[in-house]
């Protein structure tokens, strides 16, 4: 499958990148590592007239410990850089654990954290070639008005399948978005629309530039559990990130967060999971309760491999395991 013709821009600064976005608003697509965008362009899921390759913006390739504490991760930091960062391993282990499960070493060398956060949603009926989609009458997400997953419905259920965002949600990450009017900073949780087609609350002339994690979130124990059929290269079919803070293995939990991915159109924090955990020593029972809460948050449909019922069950199992793993440190 060939790429359609497009004009490539390679800006060196955020300002010129944003200016190009504004100038070609709607006809232009940001390219970071390209590991998600390029296959999709071959399938004609995107056919932008202009492609904005932002890899020339050097300042976005850094992981920086901030003077006032906390961490800044440039949008172009690769997943391998995150994996290799000793600082992240020590202070925000959940992020590293999640990043390490992504695709394969080669793809992690190319794929960026920004791309992982802005990853397009996925669906069996969407991630197909143009000719194939034609034969099925297309779908709501692209070129059509049907949904093959929830027939009769008008909502797109394509699934967000990035591995790092649930970890970042647990860590309360904030993101910086640059636009023609300058930058704004929002909670990562506010980036996602909850819908498979619109997916991101980011304007057509904006781009993601940085991720911030507060210092107060360092030192949490973390775990990321990912359901995958195959041991090598597999998108998550369900994923659960958990962070726990306590003074010791059997000590009561002081703070905790649980987030899930690959079972909804957005990554989601599991509401109530912190209350279930805080003030108690983690055991099998509490972990199971958290699993139930997580499963209630998950709305898997037939968007990918394996049945929805199965994936919902697995959210329980993986949430339970992630809680136990995080507590055990």
């Amino acid at each position: 499958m060939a790429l359609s013709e497009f004009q490539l821009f390679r800006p060196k600064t955020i300002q010129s990148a944003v200016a190009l976005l504004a100038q070609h608003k709607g006809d232009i697509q940001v390219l970071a590592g390209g590991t998600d965008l390029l296959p999709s362009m071959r399938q004609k899921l995107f056919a932008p007239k202009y492609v904005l390759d932002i890899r020339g913006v050097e300042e976005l390739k850094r992981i920086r410990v901030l003077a006032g504490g906390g961490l800044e991760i440039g949008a172009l930091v690769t997943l391998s850089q995150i994996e290799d960062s000793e600082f992240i391993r020590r202070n925000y282990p959940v992020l590293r654990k999640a990043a390490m499960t992504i695709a394969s070493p080669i793809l992690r060398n190319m794929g960026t954290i920004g791309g992982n956060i802005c990853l397009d949603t996925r669906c069996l009926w969407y991630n197909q070639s143009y000719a194939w989609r034609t034969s099925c009458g297309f779908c709501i997400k692209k070129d059509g008005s049907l949904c093959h997953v929830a027939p009769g419905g008008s909502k797109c259920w394509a699934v967000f399948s990035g591995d790092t965002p649930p970890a970042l949600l647990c860590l309360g990450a904030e993101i910086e978005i640059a636009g023609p009017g300058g930058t704004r900073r929002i909670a990562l949780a506010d980036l996602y629309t909850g819908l498979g087609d619109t997916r991101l609350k980011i304007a057509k002339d904006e781009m993601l530039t940085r991720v911030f994690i507060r210092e107060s979130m360092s030192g949490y124990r973390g775990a990321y559990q990912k359901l995958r059929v195959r041991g090598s290269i597999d998108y998550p079919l369900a994923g659960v990130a958990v962070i726990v803070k306590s003074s010791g293995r059997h000590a009561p939990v002081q703070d905790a967060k649980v987030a899930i991915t690959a079972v909804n159109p957005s990554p989601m924090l599991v509401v109530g999971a912190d209350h279930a955990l805080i003030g108690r020593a983690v055991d099998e029972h509490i972990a199971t309760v958290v699993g139930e809460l997580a499963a209630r948050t998950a709305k898997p449909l037939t968007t990918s491999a394996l049945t929805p019922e199965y994936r919902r069950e697995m959210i329980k199992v993986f949430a339970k395991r992630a809680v136990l793993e995080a507590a055990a440190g």
Partner: protein
Amino acid sequence: MSPVTDKDKTPYSWPDAKDRSVIGSRVSRVDGPSKSSGRAKYTYDYNPEGLLFGLMVRSPYAHCKVKSVDTSAAEKMAGVKAVKVVQGPGSEIFWAGDDIVGVAAVDEGTAEDAVRAIKVEYEVLPHMVDDWSEPKSAQEDTGPLSMDDLINMFQNQVPDEDVIARVKRDGITFQPAQEFLDAAGKEGVDKSVLAAIRTAQIKPAVQKPKSPFKKQAAKTQGDPAAAFKESEVVSEGLYGVPVITHCCLEPHGAVAAWGPGDHIEVQISTQNVSGMAGQMAEPLGIPASNIHMQQQNVGGGFGSKFSPDRWAIVAAQLSKQAGGAPVKMMLERRAELEVAGARPSAFARVKLGAKKDGELLVWQSSSWGTGGPGGGGMPPIPYVFDVPNQRLEHTSVATNGGPARAWRAPNHPQAAVLTLCAFDDMAAKLNMDPMAFLLKNIEMTGPRAKTYTEEFAKADELMGWKSRWHARGDKTAGPIKRGMGLSLHTWGGRGHASNCDFTVYPDGAVEIKMGTQDLGTGTRTAILMVAAETLGIPIDQIKLLIGDSKYPVSGGSGGSTTIGGVSSSTRRGAVNALKQVFAKAAPALNATPDQLSAKGGKVFVTADPSRSLSWKEACARIGAMPITSQGKNPNKQEPPDLTNSGAGGVQMADVSVDTETGIVTVNKMVAVQDCGLVINLKTAESQCYGALIMGISYALYEEKVLDPVTGRMLNADMEHYRLAGYGDIPELVVHMMTGKGYDERGVIGLGEPPVISPGAAISNAVANAIGVRVPFLPLTPDRVLSALHKTTSSKGVA
């Protein structure tokens, strides 16, 4: 070579073990460096000057009729050089992805634009893609019965009461002539049935709805009913293997150039270099002698690349239209998975009867499966074991799922799953170690009984089977359960027809030409090893030319026939060449030719090795003109046969199953395999390693998932059509049975046998771990969980 002095001994034999220095050793592939460095050229890498990119408009529907085709817009597009309607108006299409129109354009993007610009109108027809549900009613099960229906029922041994009831209820469509009744009576049809037919109501034949199901003639051996009565233990189960695809990493296709004088040059990805031109001649309307085929490397075929397919034909036609510019027509990944290869499915309900001591008495099966629009035959069940009493019935299911192709050991992996899983369930019911159960009945395997017995002993040692085996259901605490399973298999593998030319030059250079191909199995290396052993010179002094239809004809690489064919023709050609070298060199050594041997780069007097010439010196006596010789397998005029048929192997798997998630992990596999005389121990072992990995893929992941609504394949990409990667490959232990009792049988093929058993062995290991059978492969997590929770099996996409 071993001395050719023994007058009673034919010159064509394999050297004795003590005389072998190359054959049977471990030699790395000669083309390893070029492949691992990326220098090796595959068809895909062939980009001659002026190349056009070929692409197909493919049917979007699983079953339809082409109503109209409008190519005018595409033809007018800049860069589009040729357009060829392949299946025009009126054509009925039986699977999604079938070829409708071919285009050739200056590049891929333009070809894609052209494909999109071609307007095809289809009349969509109903499709059927479900092969895994148990067939409900075959055609003969409704409406008045025709003579054929009745004959079918007789052949299927439908019980008399049922035939009579049907005849009474629905009537028949023909006047039953006395001859028909007499003939039926002679075939053993009961009088009561004949009477019912004689007095049946005659009704007009009705157009029966076309049924995808077709019953095949039932088969009975011995007295199954009596054997079930005699049985002390009866075991019943449901087993199945879905349609999977070949998923060649290098897709199918060719680059064809139509040259002056209607001569065409074709680079093609094939398993069958010598057999291609003949298949292309007729559709192209030119003599086969005008077609020149070449291929140096192929990125996987597994049985799916014997024909030029429509793609290569259309590529040549497009090239002709485009004035002779070469056209590359290689399948996109999606098409490769949708249309270029499918292994038939097989499902069965099996019922077995045995004595308490494990003696197996009877096999009964009701099986079904599909090979696509043509339906699907019954795999060879019961596999390997000739159970004394049998009753088999089979329903062929026709689907709109794309046509079947031979897949590495056609029908054997399916037969192994249906048989060895049923045996394993019986052993569990008998509370017996399945190895003990198979050994108890091993005489039913016929001539291979001894081989299997020895192989089980070896596999036991390598797996620690007896010391580690536990009864069904791992009782240890925690969600992870561990288990072991086993299976065995057989295959023919006699060498195919093969010819080669040897040229020995006066400077000692040696050249071999053979119209064979190296599928990545190490064929090149094996040919060179045999030649080097025979001529007594190192491999790197021999030049081997293969992969060209101008070379002497050698068979297609299918049925594991290549190694037997090429090793035999090479041995014969080399012996013939050496004889001539000896004749020229003998005077210089004051000896007669039959007193000479060749080894270690020398030609010498066997009885007095101090009298010797170097190979170069010996060849210098040839004179100005090189020596030529031919090698031919088989050669009925000059026996014996250097190749043989009938390999046996056993395999064991050790797995862990996470009973909370249903995820299966293979911890270790052991393969013990015989293939007669091993030419290259290293590539023989590699063949088994590869087969185990492929086996893990189809046991755990592979399935061609067709959507019932659209009839399209849902997982025609390598994200959802999963193959095992490094992270999924466990410890693999391979042992080749060699030495006395094996070597003297001659060379036997190995490509297919080791891929037969992994499915059954892994399924049995899972059953052993979790205590219940997961009926169908692949053993996806949701299926494992539903088996554990005894819910109905779900067919989730995986």
